[in-house]
Structure formats: structure tokens, C-alpha cells
């Protein structure tokens, strides 16, 4: 093939692909600024002739979306922070500390990955019902506070740390917690960033468990609030798009600013141990 034609073909296809990937997102953004009722026209408008912020104002003043936003931030932030601490401790122990049955236990954990999370959801709901945790922040966060994948990521990364460094600190009489906090943690910084972004995004986008666990609107996260509005058909197209923008924008912004860490984590997680 003619090299110039080949180049045009490759870049043309990429441009087409990017257009397909981005069009729904850009359309969502454009419609969210259209006055109520104006997007339902033929031909469907692409651009708000008179952009307004009414849809966003309505959502905050009447649909209580500010509460959902706050809940989402609180729940995703809490899960990211706590699971980060727990996964780091466990992953480091699996990589660098010696104890009987270490490899067997790790294999058991990896085996758990085969079981889909939904199997656990119904009994978990009952457990929380008897414990009085249904419709609470604690209930929605507890199951996410540790993850096998997170432990796996940390272990993969921590295995590369030099043993001599840890041994030298031990000979100097440093305690294990001190070694972990002062020596290991700074070296694990890249995987900390990766894991923080990954868990925050996963928790933010999570739907089925919050749907089961959170029964009252006071604790709803953004995806839950949005899904409820979508099924009740009470809001117009423009307002639904504004709600979608509010749900998607924080995670998209986080991804764009931390792209490196996110993609690194994705690749690290897909490599077999």
C-alpha cells in the first residue's frame, strides 16, 4: 500500500474511533446546558443555542443531588483510604515478612477471585440486617475495605524492594512498624498512588452493592440517585444529562490527572503472579 494512504487510513480510523468514544460524553455535556425541553427536537440539536445552568440548579435545589455528591465522595474516599491501609499492610507482609503457610494462604486468597462478588451480597445483606447496618455508611463501606486484587498489586510491587535494606534496619534495632512506615512506605509510593486511584474509581462507579445496602435516599450515592431518577422518569432529558455530568466528571478528571498511575495499575494487575 502507498505509505501516505496507509498513514491517512490509520489516523482516519483512530479519529473515527475517538469520535465514537467521545461523542456520547460531549453530547451529554452539551445537552446539560440546554434549557428544559429544547433537546427533544428534530433534528436533535448538538449545541445549546442559549446555554443555561438551570438544570444543575434544579438538581441541587429540588432533587437533592448535593447530598448524593457528598455521599459519593465520603463513601468512595473512605473505602479508598481504609482499603489502602489494609491492602498495603497485607501485601507487604505477603511479599517480605516470613511466616508459616505464606504461599498457601496467598493461593487461597487468589482462589477467592474466582467467586463473583454477587454471590456474597444476599447473605451480607441479611448479616447487616441483623447487625442493624442496613442503610448506613459503615454497611456500604465495610465489604470494600480490603481486596484481593489490591493485596496482589502491593505484593507484586513490594517483592522488588531490596531485602538488604530491611535487614540493615533490623540490625540497627528498628521495629517492624517503624521499618514499614519509614522505609517501606516511601518506596511503595507509586503503587500507593495507583491503588488509591483504582479503588476510588471502582468505589465511585460501584452500583449493585450500594443499591442493595442503601435503602433510604439520605444515603444514596450519585449512581443510585441517577438510576432512581432514570427509572421514575420524573426529570427531563436536560436535567438527566446534568446529573450524568456530575456523576462522570469527577472520575474523568481524576483519571486524566492520574492517567499514568491508573494505566500502570491496570497492567500490573493483569500480569500473572
Amino acid at each position, binding site marked *: 500500500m502507498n505509505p501516505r494512504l496507509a498513514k491517512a487510513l490509520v489516523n482516519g480510523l483512530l479519529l473515527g474511533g475517538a469520535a465514537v468514544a467521545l461523542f456520547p460524553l460531549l453530547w451529554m455535556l452539551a445537552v446539560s446546558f440546554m434549557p428544559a425541553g429544547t433537546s427533544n427536537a428534530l433534528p436533535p440539536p448538538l449545541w445549546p443555542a442559549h446555554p443555561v445552568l438551570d438544570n444543575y440548579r434544579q438538581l441541587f435545589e429540588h432533587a437533592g443531588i448535593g447530598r448524593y455528591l457528598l455521599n459519593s465522595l465520603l463513601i468512595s474516599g473512605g473505602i479508598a483510604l481504609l482499603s489502602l491501609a489494609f491492602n498495603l499492610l497485607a501485601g507487604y507482609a505477603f511479599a517480605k515478612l516470613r511466616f508459616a503457610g505464606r504461599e498457601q494462604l496467598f493461593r487461597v486468597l487468589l482462589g477467592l477471585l474466582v467467586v463473583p462478588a454477587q*454471590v456474597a451480597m444476599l447473605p451480607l445483606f441479611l448479616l447487616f440486617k441483623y447487625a442493624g447496618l442496613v442503610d448506613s455508611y459503615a454497611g456500604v463501606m465495610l465489604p470494600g475495605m480490603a481486596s484481593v486484587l489490591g493485596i496482589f498489586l502491593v505484593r507484586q510491587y513490594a517483592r522488588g524492594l531490596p531485602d538488604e535494606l530491611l535487614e540493615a534496619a533490623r540490625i540497627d534495632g528498628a521495629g517492624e512498624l517503624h521499618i514499614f512506615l519509614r522505609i517501606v512506605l516511601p518506596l511503595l509510593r507509586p503503587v500507593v498512588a495507583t491503588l488509591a486511584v483504582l479503588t476510588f474509581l471502582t468505589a465511585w462507579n460501584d452500583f449493585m452493592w450500594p443499591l442493595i445496602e442503601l435503602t433510604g435516599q439520605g444515603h444514596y450515592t450519585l449512581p443510585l440517585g441517577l438510576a432512581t431518577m432514570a427509572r421514575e422518569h420524573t426529570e427531563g432529558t436536560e436535567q438527566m444529562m446534568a446529573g450524568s455530568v456530575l456523576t462522570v466528571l469527577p472520575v474523568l478528571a481524576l483519571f486524566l490527572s492520574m492517567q499514568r498511575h491508573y494505566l500502570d495499575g491496570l497492567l500490573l494487575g493483569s500480569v500473572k503472579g
Partner: protein
Amino acid sequence: MKASRVAWLFLAPALLVLAVFFLLPVLGALALSFTDYDLYALADLHNLRFVALGNYWALLHRPQFWAALGHTFYFVAVGVPLSLAASLGAALLLHSPLARCKAFFRAALFAPVVTTAVATAVVWRYLFNTKYGWANHLLGMLGLHPVDWLGDPHWAMPTIILFAVWKNFGYNMIILLAGLQAVPAELYEAARIDGASAWRQFRHITLPMLGPTLLMVAILTVSGYFQLFAEPYVMTEGGPLESTTSVLYLMYEDGFQWWNLGVATAEAFVLFLVMFAVTAAMLRLSRRGEAA
């Protein structure tokens, strides 16, 4: 302090969380699926009865369950190959030395992956609206008849599949791109010197070298797609005529709308077994393919 005791202290928080909030409920699910746990048992545990395999037996005789299993298989069987094809195509384009602005294209193609499924499903519902949606507007411009995308039982699942491909292809694209970058360049050079065409290079170098990555990606995608739930929940509410009711959607309805938790856990376990069998079969077939 003894080294192993320190290790267990480090492990304790994470292991406790996984044991209490995952392992225990999974075992509980198995137990629950052998009972008739329903609204009456929820009110008073004395109403709970052991029914052994009764729930599973009833499922086998329930057309609604077979239909849900069928819809789920439809979604997996069509959605996974389409997703993988899109991922591989995009990865090959991004890997091409002719491609410009690679960082931009990579981020743009990956963007749908990080978006919230519920939010983008809402967007698609409007894009595929029969009257005002862009999908039908484009069809109209091509001179084609409008389609009732989410209202026609024949079209609802294909529309959801289209959404899933759009939303997910970027994830595997990144993994496959890394796989492509790991193929040694000398192999292609040698092939070029031998006069192999681009297609033959793809067929005899790229595909075999990418084989293990493709298999891993395929297995992960299959198990992910078996867990179809949020898309029909938001886009079609399982309809029209239950044509998009997946196993998990049925489980959610049985469990949390009708409070038949015994039946619902049995459904979850059957789905788990089916997923396990399918992914194990994929692994096995690929091993046999390698040996041959």
C-alpha cells in the same frame, strides 16, 4: 517480637475484612440456597425450613430462569467477541508507527472505561430514543427506517451489547497494546526480509505472540460479562418482554423485590457454576490448541 507474629498482625485487618465480609457470606449463601428463606422467615426465623436442593430443582423447571440464562449467554457470546475485536483493532492502530498523537487517542479511546456505567447508560438511553435519539437520526440520514432500539424485544439486547462494547473495549485495548509492544521487533524485520505481507505478519507473528494475553483478556471479559446487571437495570428495566432480564437481574428481583432470598442465592450459585465451567473450558481448549 517474633517475626511471624508481626506478619500476622500486618495481615490481620485485611484478612478479617475478607473473612467476615466475603468468605463467610459466600458460605452463608451456600447454606441459604438450601432453605426456603423468604419474607416470612425474614419476619420470624422460625418459619425457615430446610429444602435441600429444592430451590435448584425448582430453578431447572422454571422457564423464566432458563430465559434469563439464555439472555445472559446471548450477551456474553455476542458481546465478548465484539469487544475483543474492537480492543484488538484499537490496539493495533495505536501500535502502528504511522499513528500520530498517540497519547491523545489512547486517552480518548480509554475514557468510556472510567465513566460510571449508570450515568453513561442513561446517556445511551437518550441517544437511542426512538423519536429524538441520534441513532435513529443517523439512520434517517442514510435513508433507513427508524428502529425502536430499547422498546423492541429483538433490538434491546443488541443495543445493550453495543453500549457494553463502547464502554469496555478501552480496558482490554490497553492490555493488548502492552502485549503488542512486548513482541520483539526482530521478528517483524525477519518476516519483512522474507517478503511476508502485512496480513501474514499479523497472522503468523502478532496473533501467536499475543495468544496468552488474548486468552487472559478473553477469560476476564467473559466472567465480567456474565455479571450483566446495571445496564438492563437503567436502560430497559429488564424488558421489553423480559428480553434483557439477565441472571443477576432476576436474582435481584427475586431477592429484593419478592424477598425470596433462598431462591435468589440458588440463582447466584448457578451463575457462579456456569461462569466457572465456561472459563475452565476456555482454558482447557486453549491448552489443547497449544499442544496440537
